[in-house]
């Protein structure tokens, strides 16, 4: 189980929490109006995932089976509260922008899903790594979707970067094109649904092409072997 390469592939692509497991869609769709909001929530989710995976893995041998779910819930809830307090203290502007969606990380099924499906059955290091990769996969989708919506909607990228990175980032905003009237569809919730649908479709298309190529290669391989033997 402790194959790090396959863990990375699982989290980022094959079993991506947002694109394949379709977990945690509520915050994903709601906050991705800009790249920075997406990145902020993604990193917060990743921190909670890593913390809860490590803790769950540490206590997996002496927590009895009947009470494991309430224990997981308590661990996750306390990590979310701690992250919320830290964000409130150190990234106040971002905290205000993300608002209710930070406490709602508790309800992100991706987190309890990983605790139950992976961390409770594995050693600490693989569990932590799984948390990082699942979190990174989730963050990647948040950032992609946020980027799509921000470029289409407002014509900018990375606006408000100083909320996350401090004053040095105040001039990081890239203006792709200047627009007087933003493209509302991209900014409002329907844009999130459409963008998410397109991302899932793109992922499936790439997967299909990959499998098609693989089967073709396999055929060639068998043919070569046949000629070699004859």
């Amino acid at each position, binding site marked *: 189980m402790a194959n790090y390469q396959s863990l990375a592939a699982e989290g980022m692509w094959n079993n991506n929490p947002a694109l394949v497991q379709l977990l945690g869609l509520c915050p994903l769709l709601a906050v991705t109006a800009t790249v920075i909001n997406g990145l902020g929530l993604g990193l917060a989710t990743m921190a909670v995932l890593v913390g809860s995976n490590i803790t769950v893995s540490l206590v997996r041998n002496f927590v009895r089976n009947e009470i494991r779910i309430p224990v997981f819930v*308590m661990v996750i809830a306390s990590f979310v509260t701690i992250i919320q307090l830290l964000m*409130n203290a150190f990234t106040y502007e971002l905290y205000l922008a993300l608002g209710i969606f930070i406490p709602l990380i508790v309800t992100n099924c991706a987190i309890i899903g990983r605790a139950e499906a992976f961390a409770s059955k594995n050693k600490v290091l693989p569990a932590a790594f799984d948390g990082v990769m699942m979190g990174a996969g989730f963050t990647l989708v948040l950032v992609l979707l946020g980027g799509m919506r921000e470029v289409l909607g407002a014509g900018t990228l990375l606006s408000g970067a100083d909320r996350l990175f401090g004053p040095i980032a105040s001039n990081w905003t890239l203006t792709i094109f200047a627009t007087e009237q933003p493209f509302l569809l991209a900014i409002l919730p329907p844009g999130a649904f459409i963008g998410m649908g397109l991302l899932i479709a793109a992922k499936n298309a790439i997967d299909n092409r990959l499998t098609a190529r693989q089967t073709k290669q396999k055929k060639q391989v068998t043919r070569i072997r046949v000629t070699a033997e004859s």
Partner: protein
Amino acid sequence: MLDTLAKNGGMLGAFAVVTTALISLTYLGTEDRIEQQQRARLITILNEVVPAALYDNQLYADCTLISADALGSDRNHRVYRAREQNQPVALALQTTAPDGYSGDIELVVGVDASMTVLGVRTLEHQETPGLGDKIELAVSDWIRTFSGKTYREEEKQAWQVKKDGGQFDQFTGATITPRAVVGAVRRTLDYVADNRTVLFEQPANCSETE
């Protein structure tokens, strides 16, 4: 059976204690900084509606809670009093525009002794991005058009959007939002004109309640 119950209960209890302890530790560690951040933000906003050069008291602390229909809702609104050598200089009032396009719009209005508006800022709103959100300074300069305008009761008519015969621009495609904001500012100024002295005499009581 009882044995299992006790074990499970004990374990859950232990987890509750440990996790609560962790949260309390984080809370204690961040408490000061969070308060500092909130105060810094409040001071930034107050400085935008009442220039810091005008007064010498601690504006954010000299605050009183007022509940008046003119301020848009029956909630308590904060009124900050700016004084120079204990003489009243200006007021910064939190006010609500209850008739926004989607819900309440929270504003803060700064006004000096001659009833001239020093500045207006939007604190919170849910207006449509791209249309109604031009009331935000980050999106448009529109909210600055209030600054420097003097309110007189006999010229009340001017405190409306142009469509209604006033002096303030509405936005293309969105009249309801600016109308709500202009209306809220007008009502607030009207309230200040009638209650100025009372507002300055109120005890500072913001920290006691809430």
